[in-house]
């Protein structure tokens, strides 16, 4: 099937201005690589889960794709057409094709607007989308399964789950081809996480959406994703089909992540791979394989260069010279 979005070797680099003091001391402007060279493709109806801990660059990747932060390199192809970049490095995708749901459900809604106004907003921004913004807003409310009585509420009067639904409704207004969902279940109670994921799946089926789901919750990936990528310090270190990766993780970091996922069922407990320390700072990116500072299986070669990709494309690939068996 034709892909909605294909990304090759995308990079996001932030300049770190040391300020006036650094300038006077004669230091040159430096930068940190937040996303360094990731490639993936999403087809309609597919869900790519990008998994990573804080500082892995997963949110920055999403912001780059939606044109909110400048991209410093790589090719992005949307619906078969290369996406142009403007002079400042912001991607200029067709706004209507990609929409985003940000992480904080209540915080991403303008606090002094009612749900009705919030939902009509996308149609006011782009009047071609609907003739009657208010009627279209009510249709959206129905679409995400909220009753009409919510139309008059303000964001702070919504629960996390309800605010999430409003966020989804806004994202669907432009009838996108690709939806980027940043932590769609963060902060939701276990008993309603399922509702949100089920709704996403339903919307995806009806609209043929491609979804990029950014999450740190491995448990939902297993159920909601058709593809997954594990991100560490700006790189995908393992990528492939969820069932393969869950069954047999090859990169030691993936294995550690899976093991660090306590379950109520002690029978599923795996032998823990103990990781040392914490994710290094982006300012002090380790040489070679970024993971070697914490890796229990690191070898001398890991300190020298980032490992080559191994495995079978589209099934499971990993970047490690000494993978877990």
């Amino acid at each position, binding site marked *: 099937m034709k892909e909605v979005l294909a990304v090759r070797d995308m990079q996001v680099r932030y300049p770190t201005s040391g300020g006036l003091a650094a300038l006077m001391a004669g230091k040159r402007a430096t930068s940190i690589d937040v996303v360094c060279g990731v490639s993936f493709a999403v087809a309609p109806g597919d869900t790519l889960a990008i998994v990573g*801990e804080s500082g892995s660059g997963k949110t920055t990747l999403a912001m780059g794709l939606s044109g909110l932060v400048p991209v410093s390199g790589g090719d992005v192809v949307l619906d078969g057409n290369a996406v142009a970049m403007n002079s400042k490095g912001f991607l200029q995708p067709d706004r209507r094709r990609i929409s985003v749901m940000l992480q904080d459900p209540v915080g991403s809604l303008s606090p002094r607007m009612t749900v009705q106004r919030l939902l009509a907003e996308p149609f006011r921004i782009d009047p071609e989308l609907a003739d009657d913004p208010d009627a279209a807003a009510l249709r959206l409310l129905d679409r995400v399964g909220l009753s009409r009585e919510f139309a008059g509420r303000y964001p702070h009067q919504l629960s996390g789950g309800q605010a999430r639904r409003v966020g989804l409704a806004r994202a669907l207004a432009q009838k996108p081809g690709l939806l980027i969902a940043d932590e769609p279940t963060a902060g939701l109670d276990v*008993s309603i996480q399922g509702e949100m994921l*089920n709704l996403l799946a339903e919307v995806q089926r009806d609209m043929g959406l491609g979804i990029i789901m950014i999450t740190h919750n491995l448990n939902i990936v*297993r*159920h909601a994703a058709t593809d997954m990528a594990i991100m560490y310090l700006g790189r995908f270190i393992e990528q492939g089909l969820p069932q393969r990766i869950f069954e047999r993780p090859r990169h030691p970091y993936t294995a550690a992540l899976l093991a660090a996922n306590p*379950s*109520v*069922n002690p029978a599923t407990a795996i032998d823990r791979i103990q990781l040392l320390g*914490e*994710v290094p700072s982006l300012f002090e990116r380790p040489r070679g394989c970024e993971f070697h500072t914490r890796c229990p299986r690191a070898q001398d070669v890991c300190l020298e260069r980032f490992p080559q990709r191994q495995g079978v494309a589209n099934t499971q690939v990993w970047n490690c010279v000494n993978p877990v068996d």
Partner: protein
Amino acid sequence: MSAPVLNISNLSVNYSTDRGTLHALRDVDLHIQAGRIVGIVGESGCGKSTLISTIIRLLSANACVEEGEVLFQGEDLLALDAKAMRKLRGNELAMVFQDPMTSLNPVLSIGRQMLDIQYRDDGSKAEKKSRSLHMLERVGIPDAATQLDRYPHHLSGGMRQRVAIAMALMTEPSLLIADEPTTALDATLEIQIIQRLRQLQRDVGCAVLFISHHLGVISELCDEVVVMYAGEVVESGGTRQVFDAPKHPYTRGLLECDPASIQASDNILPVIPGQLPDLTDPPPGCIFQPRCDRSVAQCSSQRPRLDGQGHRAACFVATS
């Protein structure tokens, strides 16, 4: 078995709000034996925060303890005066919060704060310092000697939480209350801290009241579980008893909803339909009845009690 460190019985707490009286806690029973780790499981609105605030006596001004008692080592906390309570807090009763930044003073070095917390103890400054150092090493802080001179903002979230735990355990309390201490941390760190906490608890021998919404973490760490829903304890018992053979429909629903426990890679995930009841006007019968798929006539008229010992559930149709 030894006497319970914390014994809460029949505790009901109300808030007076614009919309009327909000019944935040109703007839809560909770017992923690010395040296045990008890986990409270509950989703938002279950009354966890009110319960903690009641124990440490930091309820907001519009709250009122309707009835019940909170016995800590045989002393009624609700009857203590402010001075006695202050002495207890941070000495016999320690807390670790979700965000360690709120419990650490940003303008004092870690070492200084760890000295300050020992102000009640005798001993020279050098002794106290070596005790701080030892404690930091025990919570797994590398290069502890240099960390003593650093400030909270120098440390990462995981390190800060370790410092907070070290400080809480410094005074060898009888009870440690840990309110979602790992929620803000990444999974690989969470598991490190949980394991460390378990080990420290064994060494210090204190009881722990551990609050989390993460069922897996509770299962990993706790000896006993208390399941709360909308201000009531609906089920309690040994961790394995509760998680392996849940009696209350809510507990069962919660376990079914936990994506970690679903093995089938089905696209449709189970949910508990419905919403929390309005606590200003709770249903007359069982609190969970409006969302329960097993309710019988009795459930909507009579309130089930949490009776008996060991593994118990407040439910008329409880499966065993």
